[in-house]
């Protein structure tokens, strides 16, 4: 069953690119919330860099989505003038930033996912998508290189830091399955060589995550599909609050230049 408002009229390519754009903008928003709140100054600067990478990604994907849609909408129309039910990000991106442990665990799980995903997406037959992926994979490799030692030292640092990592994994585990859930329209794009079969990435992801955490004696089971709905506009309650904040100016003063 298809729940997205107006989604039936939308082309698979548009939905695909839009989903990637929403993933990026939502995660960048959560990361940007760390600005002036990080454990120390160096980390504040580093987290902002990652947030900026994702804003950049969001802009490229939105611009392309707008082009694919062909209705003269801009990147900002897509980011600022769609409602909760029209946003199609995977849910893991929208969860509140939590403590530093939660943010880093989410980042680690996502970095590992994007590392596998983008490595394949660079070969997309759609040249624009391939070009964006080629830029993004460089960023993601660095992000992962950063998250790995963070997870290691927080897992093995103090009892408190370890328990916070374990708790974050617990809170996130219901949301990882959705990363590997293919939509029907997306499968048709895989057949055309445009999209990636995310379901096929899961064994590698499981193995990597379990292996890495296992070295610190932390268990994490296979990604099981628990909570789903993001790609169809069914979200957690958190997204609405995020959008009401993010879209406030555009909604309060419609149609203005900023």
């Amino acid at each position, binding site marked *: 069953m298809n729940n997205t408002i107006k989604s039936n009229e939308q082309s698979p390519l548009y939905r695909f690119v839009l989903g990637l754009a929403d993933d990026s903008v939502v995660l960048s928003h959560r990361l940007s919330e760390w600005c002036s709140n990080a454990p120390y100054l160096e980390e504040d600067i580093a987290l902002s860099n990652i947030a900026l990478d994702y804003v950049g990604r969001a802009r490229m994907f939105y611009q392309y989505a707008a082009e694919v849609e062909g209705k003269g909408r801009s990147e*900002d129309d897509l980011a600022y003038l769609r409602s909760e039910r029209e946003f199609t990000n995977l849910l893991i991106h929208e969860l509140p930033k939590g403590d530093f442990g939660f943010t880093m665990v989410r980042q680690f799980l996502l970095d590992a996912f994007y590392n596998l995903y983008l490595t394949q997406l660079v070969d997309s037959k759609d040249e624009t998508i391939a070009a964006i992926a080629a830029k993004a994979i460089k960023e993601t490799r660095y992000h992962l290189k950063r998250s790995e030692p963070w997870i290691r030292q927080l897992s093995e640092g103090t009892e408190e830091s370890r328990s916070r990592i374990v708790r974050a994994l617990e809170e996130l585990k219901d949301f990882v399955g959705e990363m590997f859930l293919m939509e029907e329209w997306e499968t048709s794009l895989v057949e055309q060589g445009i999209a990636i079969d995310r379901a096929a990435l899961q064994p590698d992801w499981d193995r990597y995550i379990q292996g890495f955490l296992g070295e610190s004696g932390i268990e994490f089971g296979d990604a099981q599909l628990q909570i789903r709905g993001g790609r169809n506009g069914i979200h957690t309650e958190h997204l609405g609050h995020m959008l009401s904040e993010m879209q406030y100016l555009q909604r309060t003063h419609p149609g203005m230049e900023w």
Partner: protein
Amino acid sequence: MQTLDKDEAVEQATFDQRISDEQKIEPTDWMPDDYRKNLIRQMSQHAHSEVIGMQPEGNWITRAPTLRRKAVLLSKVQDEAGHGLYLYSATESLGITRSQMIDALQSGKAKYASIFNYPTLTWADIGAIGWLVDGAAIVNQITLQRTSYGPYARAMVRICKEESFHQRQGYEIMTVLAHGTQVQKQMAQDAMNRNWWPSLMMFGPHDSESAHSSRSMGWKIKRMSNDDLRQKFIDQTVPQIEALGLDMPDPLIKWNEERGHYDSGEINWEEFYQVINGAGPCNYQRIKHHKAAHSEGEWVREAVRSYRQKQQDKKTENAA
């Protein structure tokens, strides 16, 4: 008057000679205690200003109206963090640690620019801050590139290079608003009016009232007086206000042909001292935010230290 023993007198003479020859003082050089103290005070205050300054602008990162503005603002606030880092790093070369500086900030012993104790109420404040506050900071910092302490001067060179985009992005926001709808224009006028006086206050008290000014000038830590810098800022900003088509924030602003400068009204010094001494609209909130972030980060820093220790222990064990 303190008497110097002979060695110290020689050191003092070498130091004085260096200052008068426009040579930089470097961290391992002998320097008078008061010079060191004065530097620590000014540089750490400068560093704290960058770091506390992240908050009022950070207040709008999640509400920036377009993706481009969001990216610009985030990278700008990130730069402020970077500038804080450069300055803490330069100050540490004087023999004080960053934790000591942070303690001084949080206990109220160290000050930061009072401008950051005012709230950013609308999006136009982001424009006004970039334009006026960064503009005022740049006027000051350009002269500090010639300051006598080497690490401070070098940090200033790097900071000035990076700041140039900050003021422009602010002015760009103001330009768009000033040429936008009536609502936007009002927003711009209001934000400029509110930020104008606090920006002028950034240059500190009148030269005649400034406790540290003349000594700092003698040591060439400061290169231009508070009032001269303030005048320079007013002179360069008034035409920019005219270009925006906004009303002057001060009715007394008027070109003075004889002086070759703009005349302007008197700052409300009572407000200035009130805010400096902790009674500004956001003083409490800014320090509270800083303390909360710092103490929430303690478990992370603790974990990092503990992990590091364990790794070192392992190494020693393996070597044994």
